[in-house]
């Protein structure tokens, strides 16, 4: 009894891990079939950018903010509002609690 059964499906991590390792082994085997005759640190592995100079690696690092820039931009409407709600003002924190309390009271009164 290693896995768990949710009544809808079963999950056995050991089987999954064995399968995963098997697939990794297959992938490594396929990789081993590839060419080995290229030489590292020679012109064969040099980055070629259409003849342009290769930038320094320090300039190429994708910083934290940049990674999901597109996604944040696409959802900018939501994010603008969500940020506006996180004001950091203590009075607003209190207000949220009172509002939630009010909703709970209404629900309990209606649901009774």
């Amino acid at each position, binding site marked *: *009894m*290693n*896995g*768990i059964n*949710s*009544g*809808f*499906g079963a*999950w*056995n*991590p*050991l089987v*999954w*891990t064995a399968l*995963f390792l098997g697939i990794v082994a297959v992938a490594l085997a396929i990789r081993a079939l590839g060419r080995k005759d290229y030489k590292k640190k020679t012109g064969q592995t040099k980055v070629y950018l259409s003849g342009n100079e290769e930038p320094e*690696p*320090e300039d*190429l*690092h*994708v*910083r*934290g*903010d940049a*990674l*999901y820039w597109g*996604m*944040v931009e696409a*959802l900018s409407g*939501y*994010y603008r509002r*969500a*940020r506006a*709600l*996180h004001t*950091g003002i*203590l009075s*607003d*924190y*209190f207000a*949220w*609690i009172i*509002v*939630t*309390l009010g*909703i*709970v*009271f209404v*629900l*309990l*009164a*209606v*649901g*009774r």
Partner: protein
Amino acid sequence: MNALSVHAPVLLVATPLLAAFVVPLVAKLGSTVRNAVVGVFTLLTASLAGLVAANVLAGSGAPSVYVFGASPLNLTLPSGMHVPIRILFEVDGMSAFMILITALVAVAATLYSFSYFKEHSGGEMYYPLLFLLLAAIFGMEETGDLFNFFVFLEIAGIAACGLIGFRPWRGRSQEAAFKTMALYTLSGLFVLIALGLLYGQHGGLNIAYLSSRVGAEMLDLVALGLLVVALGMKAGVAPMHMWALDAYGEAPAPISAVLVASSQASLYGLFRVLFTLFGAAVSVAALGWFLIALSVLTLFVGVTMALLQKDIKRLIAYGAVSQIGYMLLGVGVGFTTSGSRPAYGFVAMQGGIFHMVNDAACIGLLFLAAGAVHRASGTRDLNRMGGLGHDMKWTAALFAIGALALAGVPPFNGFSSKLLIYESSFAASPILAAIAILSSILLLAVFMKVFQAAFLGPRLLENVREASRGMLVSMLMLAVVVVVFGLFPGFFVDKLVTPAAKALWLGRDAYVRAVLGG
């Protein structure tokens, strides 16, 4: 049973309390002695926690009672009384489960603190506050008396805020501590009003006694509403989650991990109120669906806002808030269906409860790793980090384990509990499962960002050193829990989670009988 295991429930609270008072006295003898004493007391507390849990789980989670000052110690109703008048501890499967979580986090956090606070003074007040916090959390999880619960809740709040604001030279930590303390005070007073209402109605504050008396009268429902909101706030449920971000983000790293356990203890209190205290009296589907709505909101707000953060600890804090959503979703589905009791309701409970331990281990691991990163790089700003993986290989690997587990990537532990939540919430409503899965995917994206920005890429920071051995060992401890719980979920669900879920889902009558007899 020998004397030690008979008295283990009370010793579990008394030992950290004793440590909190002894440590300042021995701190005069130098930091080595102090650390040795702290270590001994932590191990003692953890083994007592193990003993309590083993005793309860050996009885498959049936509640056991410890009455203070009574002779014999399980005498709940002295001659002729109908109301239990003494303060008592009542430990059942759910309490035992929570105790184990707290003990796990406590050991990791203390071990980590030894290296984390090496160059700072003030340890003679840090460890007492930490022990006070632990004693209060254990007390909340064990007590069978509502007023006692309130007292422990307040002690936990005061100790936690003392620790959040422990570094007064950081202005932001003071801001976080003030906000947190103000909100804790308000929620504590809500709990107190609810206690007053219940006492005025029924003339007792024992949970089991009240559970046999409460009905659906207006004042009882007002008390229920106050308790739900107050405890939900202390657990960090949206839209009352803002304090959690400030507190987790600004507290010292090991304290953030313990604060997660403290929030979970509040969540435990919420479950206790919903299932045990009001389990028979209230079957308000509207409240259940409201809790599910709150949990989905918590999930969604947590993960989406995490994507924006620049500060690594605040980002993880948002992640921690979103995990509270998963637990509440699982248990909320269970609560909503507790009238009809379909099979998937119990699975949802199992998922939500199993996720508590997984969350404590993953989030704890991430906070500790973030603390190590902060220590090594001198900054918490993700935009200024990069390439830390070159010098901090172990930290990077451990962080990756925590992040993948939190995002629910198999075969780590987060996947097992989330699978139970997905499938059972799908049975309740497919939309819930869709949102839960979407949030998991977003969470993976969030931690991809952290990992890429902090650990990958070329070296951007000079003089970065690997975290010290003590920090690594404590992180490794949590990582081992993450992996083992991930690889053998069936064993832990059987032995730990099912008794806990049964204690909530079906155990109300047993809980009441243990005190009132009959």
